[in-house]
């Protein structure tokens, strides 16, 4: 699965994307956040406040309980500030 990071999440992780083989017990966005954080100190800090984390699964904005099994791309980013 491809995982994308944007804005200050990208900066804090010092990378724009990851490619992961996820364990079977990682089935939704929230579990993915926890799994990434557990494996990476920078990620643990960056994802610390989950209220500030927005997610998109296969180019669709979703809540953190959204199922990611079979998804190709998950993107994480802060609240949007365009316009």
């Amino acid at each position, binding site marked *: 699965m491809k995982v*994308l990071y*944007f*804005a*200050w999440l*990208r900066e804090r992780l010092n990378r724009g994307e990851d490619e992961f083989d996820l364990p079977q017990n990682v089935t939704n966005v929230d579990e993915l956040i926890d799994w990434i954080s557990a494996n990476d100190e920078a990620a643990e800090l960056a994802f610390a406040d989950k209220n500030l984390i927005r997610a*998109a699964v296969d*180019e669709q*904005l979703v809540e953190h309980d959204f199922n990611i099994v079979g998804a190709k791309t998950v*993107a994480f*980013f*802060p*609240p*949007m*500030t*365009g*316009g």
Partner: protein
Amino acid sequence: MGNILSPKNAIVVKLQSEIFNPGDESNQFIKQADGGGAAVTFTGLVRSLADNPIKKMTLEHYPALAQKQLENMAQTALERFGLIKVKVIHRYGAMYPNEPIVQVMSLSAHRQAAFDGANFIMDWLKTDAPFWKFEEGENGAEWVAAKTVDDNAKDKWK
């Protein structure tokens, strides 16, 4: 989604890094008015305030999702308000004070629909289009924080 209601070119969404000319875009948009008597243009500009002067703003974006979200918002506005056409231009990359960032244009037979269409798109764009502003100024550089007022602005369309 709603292809029957929206003929070709009724919706145009353009993401670009280049600067654009707001007035030229408006003129282009209303040139083929197709019976529409009311056009509304919203233009968002890079602000530089006296108490926090900005030298440069950089907009990061998630291209595929941004295009999709803006098209969805434009389509929803077109159908909901019975607009004749909608065009959205949003820049990404580096820009400077007073330059245009975004322009939303709506054309309708009736003025309220034109106002509502552009207003609706801007309200949704603020919270649901994947762009992030990074500002560099005399007081340092930082990612712009999202505003609660922007989250609440959408409520009026419920």
